[in-house]
């Protein structure tokens, strides 16, 4: 196998690779700005300098020449090389800042250059705390600046598009954003204008940066030049905790990180997952923080003669249990949903099969033509395939109306599906049935339901979701509810400074905690109320039961989902078929 020597250590590599990527793959460090593993290589920031050399081959013998001490003779390139654009070759010798004074000097020189025209406004810059320029300046930069002139002034606060704001003075011209719109989103909406130190990226005159993936440029911007109009000035990076999760606004289910502070979601950023979304996510998915924060149902509601009245949990449970006692199982319509997790849907189906209603239904929310073959699918729900794999009966959007007006059903149980808001049925047609709605946010269905039960969102519980390609991922709690406590819930993550009881502990306010429980837990409580044998103690019990009983989910566990960035349920099936 080909070998390469980095700072006197020998490594082996296979196939063509660039030196910088190889160094990063080994877990070593080399500063860089413009390079991005999923974009082309412009080598323009000149930060990833290394000294590179190759062994001298004796053409006659075909062997490497050696010096008196038996070491290979290495011919170094006369200039510092940018590791990002340098192809690794067999026997190559690389010196980074660890061993080379010249490289250290080169890195320092480039940082000095970058900083001469970069405003030193870190205290008011959103990027501070997660800024590659800030971090690398501290690590590799010069002690001070020798620049004693006026900095170049460029436009600030340019609204590039509806979601992205540009501060051209902070820009270091790495062209990552431009390359993103050229190579990934393919909208070609950004370009660099002007020349030399007046350069900055902008849209063509009269157009705006309304790319459905525009906020990704904010993520990849190595400085605070591009900021999200929505997140700007809302929170400092170190105040937030990030929790791995998934996008619930679309069937693609991009892997994301959810950033929370004091039980509010401040922003959602993509998490690298080569199987689904690489480093990107659609802008729409970032709006999901509103679903988590705003207009939440807290405490159950009862509908008394057309008025919604807040109720106690006990009262709500009693009301539902009473109704279920009066109807035959065949008179109950059980409606699961692609918006609920696999676990919640499973327990819903299981609960009613205990009561005697074996068949659960669901209505997929697929809007043909809204997808784009990239990260936006026609499917609007994150778990449509989960319902399919659980064996739920797939109803056409227009058939649910027929089912209910047929008079077959007296009670309808709806899990997280806004059937009224989606115009699947009118309130008129629902007036003769008793409807229980388990939901996260107030909507048309919750307003009309006889009983509304608040349930947890994806970021308040552990739940699995199967995306359009059949890949199952799970979420974990990122914010507390009234009933979960991060101190005892070991699945919750914490920020750097966010230790319990310290004065940096941001989780002090109770006002942002929603009074809701996971849907599965609600059915366990309901079973108790109805004296049925039905018990789950935690969500891990449910997923292991599913994995043992449902062939689609065989071998699925949270550990595997975490370690393998989700599990492909479709191809897993194929593999098993091949083996058989």
């Amino acid at each position: 196998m080909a070998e390469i020597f980095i700072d006197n250590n020998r490594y082996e590599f296979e196939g063509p690779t660039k030196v910088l990527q190889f160094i990063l793959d080994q877990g070593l460090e080399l500063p860089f700005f413009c390079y991005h593993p999923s974009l082309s290589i412009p080598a323009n920031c000149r930060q990833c300098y290394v000294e590179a050399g190759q062994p001298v081959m004796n053409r006659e013998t075909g062997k490497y020449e050696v010096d008196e001490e038996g070491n290979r003779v290495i011919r170094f390139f006369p200039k510092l090389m940018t590791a990002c654009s340098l192809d690794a070759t067999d026997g190559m010798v690389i010196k980074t800042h660890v061993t080379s004074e010249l490289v250290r000097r080169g890195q320092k020189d480039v940082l000095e250059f970058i900083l001469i025209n970069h405003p030193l406004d870190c205290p008011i810059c959103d990027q501070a705390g997660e800024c590659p320029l800030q971090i690398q300046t501290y690590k590799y930069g010069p002690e001070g600046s020798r620049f004693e002139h006026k900095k170049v002034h460029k436009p600030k606060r340019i609204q590039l598009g509806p979601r992205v704001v540009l501060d051209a003075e902070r820009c270091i011209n790495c062209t990552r954003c431009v390359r993103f719109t050229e190579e990934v989103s393919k909208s070609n909406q950004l370009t660099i204008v002007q020349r030399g130190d007046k350069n900055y990226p902008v849209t063509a005159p009269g157009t705006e940066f309304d790319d459905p993936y525009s906020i990704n440029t904010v993520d990849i911007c190595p400085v605070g030049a591009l900021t999200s109009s929505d997140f700007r000035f809302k929170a400092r990076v170190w105040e937030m905790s990030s929790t791995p999760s998934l996008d619930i606004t679309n069937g693609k289910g991009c892997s994301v990180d959810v950033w929370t502070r004091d039980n509010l979601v401040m922003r959602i950023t993509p998490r690298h997952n080569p199987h689904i979304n690489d480093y990107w996510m659609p802008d729409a998915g970032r709006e999901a923080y509103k679903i988590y924060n705003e207009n939440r149902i807290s405490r159950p509601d009862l509908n008394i003669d057309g008025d919604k009245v807040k109720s106690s949990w006990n009262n709500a449970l009693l009301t539902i249990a009473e109704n279920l006692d009066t109807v035959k199982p065949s008179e109950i319509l059980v409606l699961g949903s692609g918006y609920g997790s696999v676990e919640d849907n499973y327990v819903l189906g299981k609960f009613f099969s205990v009561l005697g209603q074996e068949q659960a239904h669901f209505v997929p929310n697929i809007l043909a033509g809204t997808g784009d073959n990239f990260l936006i699918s026609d499917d609007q729900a994150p778990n449509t395939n989960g319902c399919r794999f659980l064996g739920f009966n797939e109803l056409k959007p227009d058939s649910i109306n027929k089912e209910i007006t047929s008079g077959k059903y007296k009670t309808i149980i709806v899990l997280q599906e806004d059937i009224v808001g989606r115009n699947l049925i009118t309130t008129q047609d629902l007036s003769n049935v008793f409807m229980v709605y388990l939901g996260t946010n107030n909507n048309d269905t919750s307003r009309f339901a006889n009983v509304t039960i608040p349930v947890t969102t994806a970021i308040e519980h552990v739940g699995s979701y199967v995306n359009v390609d059949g890949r199952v991922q799970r979420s974990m709690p990122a914010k507390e509810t009234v009933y979960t406590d991060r101190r005892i819930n070991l699945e919750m993550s914490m920020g750097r400074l966010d230790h319990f009881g310290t004065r940096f502990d941001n989780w002090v306010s109770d006002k942002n905690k929603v009074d809701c429980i996971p849907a599965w837990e609600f059915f366990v409580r309901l079973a108790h109320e109805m004296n049925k044998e039905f018990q789950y103690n935690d969500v891990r019990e449910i997923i292991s039961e599913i994995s043992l009983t449902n062939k689609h989910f065989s071998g699925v566990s949270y550990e595997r989902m975490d370690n393998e960035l989700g599990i492909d349920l479709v191809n897993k099936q194929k593999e098993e078929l091949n083996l058989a």
Partner: protein
Amino acid sequence: MSSIDWKSYTPTLIPNIKDYHKIDVYEKHGGYGALKKILKDPSAHTPESVTNAVKDSGLRGRGGAGFNTGLKWSFMPKPDGGPRYIAANGDESEPGTFKDRVIFEYNPHTFIEGSIIAAYAMSVSTVYVYIRGEYRSWIRMMEKAVSDAYEKGYLGKNILGSTFSVDMIVHSGAGAYICGEESSLMESLEGKRGYPRVKPPFPAQKGLWGRPTTINNIESLANVPLIMNKGSEWFKNIGASTHPGPLLYGISGHVNRPGVYEYPTGMLISELINDVALGVRGGKKVKAVIPGGSSTPPLRGDSLEGVRMDSDSLREAGSMLGTAGMCILDEDTDMVDFLWRVSHFYHHESCGQCTPCREGTGWLEKTLLKIKNGEGTTRDLDLLLDICGQMEGRTICALADAAAWPVRYTINRFRDEFEARVKNTVYALA
């Protein structure tokens, strides 16, 4: 003491023939003869033999780098049926350089003929002529010349009844110095922003639209018909042995008769100033000579003894031949002012792709402006040299070097003047 008999030299690139730019006149004097000779008997003049003839002639690129033209042609891979290109570089934006303009104006057809022969030698079917946007009139002249050549059947399909076809497209730049750099010239031709490309891959492997491309200077290509007509040996014996051929000297600055002169390579700088350009204006002394465009290090006027305009002699003297666009500065020139103006140019023209050049050129200019305004300190001089060190060899293309060299060498060679300017502001020891 000159070993070159320049006084009896007859110009061949821009001969003294009236209306030579007209295609009829050019044909009457044997124009397109080399092309006819090759296409009439392709078996005797294979593409390889043409390339070898140019290689043997020792013709070195006239665009500044001075690389052997025939050798460059031989880097083109074997034809695979796909498109291949020649980009003729007439961007000519280096301050002090104005020689290609003379070819466009007085002898466009020798360049066109040379390009067609080059296309034949490299099996290329499209030649782009990239001319700087400021040369509006010269672009029109070239367009006229190219359309005349099409009309006479020297360009287009099945040239002169042979199976060889080639198209020539005149393309106007938009006024950016950086687009004279070969890889950003290609970006510009592709309709993109003129940012130099990372090498490798080299243009011969992946050039225009990812296809094999050779970029040659206008003057280099204009020499090709001469080599074909008169032979490699004839060419090799003109001027300096390591850098032979006729050369267009563009002489500007404080001389009595500035202009473009065709003489053999390797002329003595002193002869060019005193005999060709008829001496320094007002009989003054020479303070500095920039031998090949503003990016080449200036030579002191008192160090010109025996220095010749060929790459070896100039390297020894501490400069480069570049484009042979000489700029002569007389003894009254303020070198600080001069250097600030040169730095201003490179600051203005840096494309801004690579950090050291984008930021360094501005820093150099601002510091030089400070010195020029009498507000500089001795420390600033060392800082300038430091900045040069941080720029040289650290970027994708050579613009950072082009910006740093004049600063480094002007300060080194005229440090007394710079120190005199900053001495006013030396702080007393506390």
